[in-house]
């Protein structure tokens, strides 16, 4: 293929145009709109719906003094760390390792169950989790059967409930990634180590994990980004309550913009979330480029 020059080169790239237009209008457009709207007091109703004013950094200053925002930021960090970085990641790795040692039939059945929770439409998964954690739900039936306390999870421990629900829903992804990664570890390496007398845990810690560290990094980035954006699960289970005790940033942005009709402020919250996503995205792409070199 010859190196292209000028007009001909551009023409060759013409087919990219529909994709570029779609991305520009519907992804870049809203991001730019968000930056603009977060500097206004646009509202859903009232006089600010007709003529929003430019109020500069006021929305961002309000973020700093609003007691709910730091709480929400903290809950988001807790949610991501608890359900993605620790929960899904470690459980996914454990499942993948166990599946290599278990009987084929067992690992197929368990694998299918784990994946089923992930393939279900999110609203269905959310309803199932809601029923599971509700006061007279399955979890409390189990605890009652064991003679233990039966708290009202969605009220007394809302964060624990949504974190566990998100682990249940999302672990399949990490499991699939790690199964693929473990498959790529050449069996000779493990065999050699076994001959040297290394036990199962040692092999995992010193040989296998370092060999799949690329996959681990990729997986961590992707599940972090996915978890950061979780809305439906929390919305259906607790709607952010009680008293904002499970209101992560996506919930807060929705509530402020649509429930309380403060589009400007809600957009400022959303902008913060977009920025956090952008930072993680940039790190992720760096990781990928480095691993390519």
């Amino acid at each position, binding site marked *: *293929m010859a190196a*292209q020059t000028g007009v001909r080169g551009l023409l060759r790239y013409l087919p990219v145009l529909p994709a570029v237009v*779609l991305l520009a209008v519907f992804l870049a457009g*809203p991001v730019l709109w968000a930056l603009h709207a977060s500097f206004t007091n646009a509202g859903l109703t009232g006089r600010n719906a007709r003529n929003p004013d430019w109020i500069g950094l006021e929305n961002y200053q309000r973020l700093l003094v609003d007691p709910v925002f730091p709480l929400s930021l903290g809950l988001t960090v807790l949610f991501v760390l608890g359900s993605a970085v620790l929960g899904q990641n470690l459980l996914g790795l454990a499942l993948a390792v166990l599946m*290599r040692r278990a*009987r084929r039939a067992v*690992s197929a059945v368990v694998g299918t169950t784990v994946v089923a929770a992930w*393939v279900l439409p999110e609203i269905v998964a959310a309803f199932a989790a809601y029923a599971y954690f509700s006061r007279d739900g399955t979890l409390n039936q189990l605890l009652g059967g064991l003679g233990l306390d039966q708290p009202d999870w969605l009220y007394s421990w809302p964060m624990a409930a949504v974190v566990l629900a998100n682990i249940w829903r999302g672990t399949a992804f990490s499991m699939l990634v790690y199964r693929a990664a473990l498959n790529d570890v050449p069996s000779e390496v493990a065999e050699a180590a076994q001959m040297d007398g290394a036990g199962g845990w040692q092999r995992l810690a010193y040989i296998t994990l370092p060999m799949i560290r690329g996959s681990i990094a990729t997986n961590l980035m992707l599940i972090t980004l996915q978890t950061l954006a979780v809305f439906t699960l929390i919305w259906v289970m607790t709607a952010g309550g009680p008293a904002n005790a499970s209101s992560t940033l996506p919930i807060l942005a929705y509530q402020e913009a649509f429930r309380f009709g403060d589009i400007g402020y809600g957009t400022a919250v959303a902008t913060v979330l977009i920025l956090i996503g952008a930072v993680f995205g940039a790190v992720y792409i760096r990781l990928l480029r480095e691993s390519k070199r």
Partner: protein
Amino acid sequence: MTAPAKASRVVPPGEATARTRGPYRSSTPADVALLLLGACFLLPLLWLVLASLDADASHETRVPAQAGLENFAAIMTPALLLQPLWNSLVLSTGTAAVTLVAAVLAAYPLSRYRSRFNTPFMYTVLFGTCLPITAIMVPVYGLFVQLELLDSMPATILFMAATALPMAIWMTRNFMDAVPASLEEAAWVDGASRMTALRTIVLPLMRQGLGVVFIFVFIQAWGNFFVPFVLLLSEANQPAAVSIFTFFGQHGAVAYGQLAAFSILYSLPVLALYVIVAKGAGSPFALSGAVRG
């Protein structure tokens, strides 16, 4: 469903890892541990199935006193079931079709021409996949108000296509790279244009890959709740994900059995499609086409 295609190399769950089983033997402790974990994942799903067969279901998991299909019969009405499912179908098929066409067109020059433009473009696209979509819903609402696109199915399809596009371009290009360029060159000699060669030579060879991309986008669109929840307002346009929430959600009727029955009918298509992708589409080849990084 969070972007299944994001796995670096995804292996379907049922697929045994016989390829590199290595030194490990099947061990009973591993079986037991795995079954225990699997049971935890199964429990919330169990409620869904049992409740759907129980005419007076509650949040409890229990074997129905009288199992029957009353719940399914109760929801089999055009307004409750068929219209929302039809809307879901239109939305998901439309999104998957638009995405696939745009992705194929964009992938072709990116795969076949060498240019300084390619790498930055691909990384920009990848960065797009990192955007937390829930964060941009407030600005997208604002944008749709300004463009007067609110409650419009075609506009919602285009938006959902844009959100799926980055991943689809990435996957499609990987599939296309796997088709040797030498085959097309023969067609050019016969006087075929590039687009004709793409249509008659390249696409047939990668149709499995195209099927995978189509189904992945379809599954994601089918399960999406938040986007139609914000952008489609009238009942006549709402897909199943939204109608299930308004009819049975926290604020709707308290009919758990019907909710479970509806959930199951609504989930079946995606479960079936997942099985097709995982089992049928020549898995290792098809699925490893997903981001290779």
